[in-house]
């Protein structure tokens, strides 16, 4: 009956010590039994506050990572759309031969219309189409000589350069968020809330050699 008395809980109901019991000097009467209880409570409160602060800090960190992913995804979408638009423009402008025009138009159209699940495949196919059309320098020269071709080419060159950039930034954000979300504390306390588990955007974004040539002009 002495042994099952916890130091924190039952201090108020502490029975008077039995003078014959050998362990009597360890349990002094009244106040001193109450004090360890209060100290323990304080310590528990401090620990809870620390845990709370840590959890809220981690939740804030995660929140920031999620908004970083959103911004990166928006930027990636913008660059992909820009690339598809310029490609479609070139496909319909009549400056390329008919076969190349059709290939480019098809791929650009498919990339713009693709559902979310088919997006990666469609964008990769646009990359392949661009590479197929702009393999040789002569094709690029032909476009450049057409009226307005210089600007279109410049826009396309910028777009094919920025898509891999935006994709890398997006996937980097995804990786950082995943690393935090895999953490035990985050899983146990469900700090991520209802945010979907972030997915990397995987695609073939190799630019055409003729457009990526940084030594040209």
């Amino acid at each position, binding site marked *: 009956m002495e042994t099952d008395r916890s130091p924190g809980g039952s201090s108020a109901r502490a029975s008077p010590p039995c003078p014959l019991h050998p362990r009597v000097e360890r349990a002094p009467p009244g106040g001193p039994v109450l004090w360890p209880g209060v100290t323990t409570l304080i310590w528990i409160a401090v620990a809870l506050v620390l845990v*709370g*602060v840590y959890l*809220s*800090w981690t*939740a*804030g*960190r995660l929140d*920031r*990572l999620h908004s*970083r992913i*959103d*911004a*990166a995804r*928006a*930027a990636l979408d*913008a*660059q992909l759309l820009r690339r598809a638009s310029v490609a479609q423009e070139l496909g319909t402008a009549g400056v390329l031969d008919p076969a190349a025009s059709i290939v480019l138009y098809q791929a650009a159209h498919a990339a713009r219309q693709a559902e979310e699940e088919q997006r990666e495949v469609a964008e990769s196919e646009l990359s392949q189409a661009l590479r197929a059309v702009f393999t040789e320098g002569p094709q690029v020269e032909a476009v450049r000589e057409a009226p307005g071709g210089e600007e279109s080419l410049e826009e396309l060159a*910028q777009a094919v*350069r*920025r898509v*891999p*950039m*935006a994709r*890398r*930034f997006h*996937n*980097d*954000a995804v*990786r*950082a968020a995943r*690393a*935090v979300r895999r953490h035990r504390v985050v899983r146990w306390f469900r700090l991520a809330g209802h945010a979907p588990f972030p997915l990397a955007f995987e695609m073939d974004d190799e630019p055409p050699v003729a457009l990526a040539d*940084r*030594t040209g*002009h």
Partner: protein
Amino acid sequence: MRIGIVCPYSWDVPGGVQFHIRDLAEHLIRLGHEVSVLAPADDETPLPPFVVSAGRAVPVPYNGSVARLNFGFLSAARVRRWLHEGDFDVIHIHEPATPSLGLLSCWAAQGPIVATFHTSNPRSRAMIAAYPILQPALEKISARIAVSEYARRTLVEHLGGDAVVIPNGVDVGFFASAEPRPEWQGGTIGFIGRIDEPRKGLPVLMRALPGILAERPGTRLLVAGRGDEEEAVAGLPPEMRGNVEFLGMVSDEDKARLLRSVDVYVAPNTGGESFGIILVEAMSAGAPVLASDLDAFAQVLDQGAAGELFANEDADALAAAAVRLLGDPARRAELGERGRRHVRRFDWATVGADILAVYETVTAGAASVAADERTGLRARLGLARD
């Protein structure tokens, strides 16, 4: 665009990162952007108008050498004030993993942050220990730039994630249009770098020199850089010491003229290089380059297409390659021409456009930079209530 750039190293001490930041800021200002650079500097140092001092850097032993760093409450407060007053669209932090202004700004800011990783330090114990502290700061960075494929690889191995590679920029026109000096021409080999720093490789070149002079006796070696000249030539036979000329520290103009004058530029560095800006400068000046086959150098030289490579620390290979080059004007002309074409990708016009593309990518769909108030107690309690 309003751009804030953070320099981690003292503005008073010249160095590669500082020059890069100065040139980048000047380039961006020429394009019409508003640029403010936050850098550690002494109060007496005259600063360009775009630089804001973050206080004096304190010399601290760090990572095996004495580094001049900024930390503490005062610096943190200055970083916050700079962020607040600048109201930047994007901030560009250099070397964010160094315990200096870069890391402080990473802690203090939120919004679009771009970071450039210059060095490729081997993973240090301090870094491993500080990883849990570094990670929350580094994960605020929206876009990472590595200065070479090599720097990117070490970054990925040490910190995870990915980076785009944008090389350091060089003002190609400045080097290409420099006037050669006649007294530095005619069978000359050039070397620029600290004399007393073995990493820069002058000892390797000194070991190779007897071999070169045996084949081509009239050759002169021109050395520009700080250090003990007596000690540098101590290993040479006395009769060969006259073939080495020390120019001491040279100005930017003289450096360009030296690179324009020499027949071969030799970069015998033995390690610790993540980029090799001097090679780009030599190529801009049309000098044929002969460099050790460090990863970073091989990449700058397009795997040997834009300049010759020799096995690192192999003085005999260096001597053989130098003799071959000195005796073959056609090959030198060819290398010079190839180098000139190759360096266009390092010109500020190209590099600056790429860096701006990164800024535009991260600012699209994001708010501007602000001081991160999340660490305040009030915000934390507010969050805790949710």
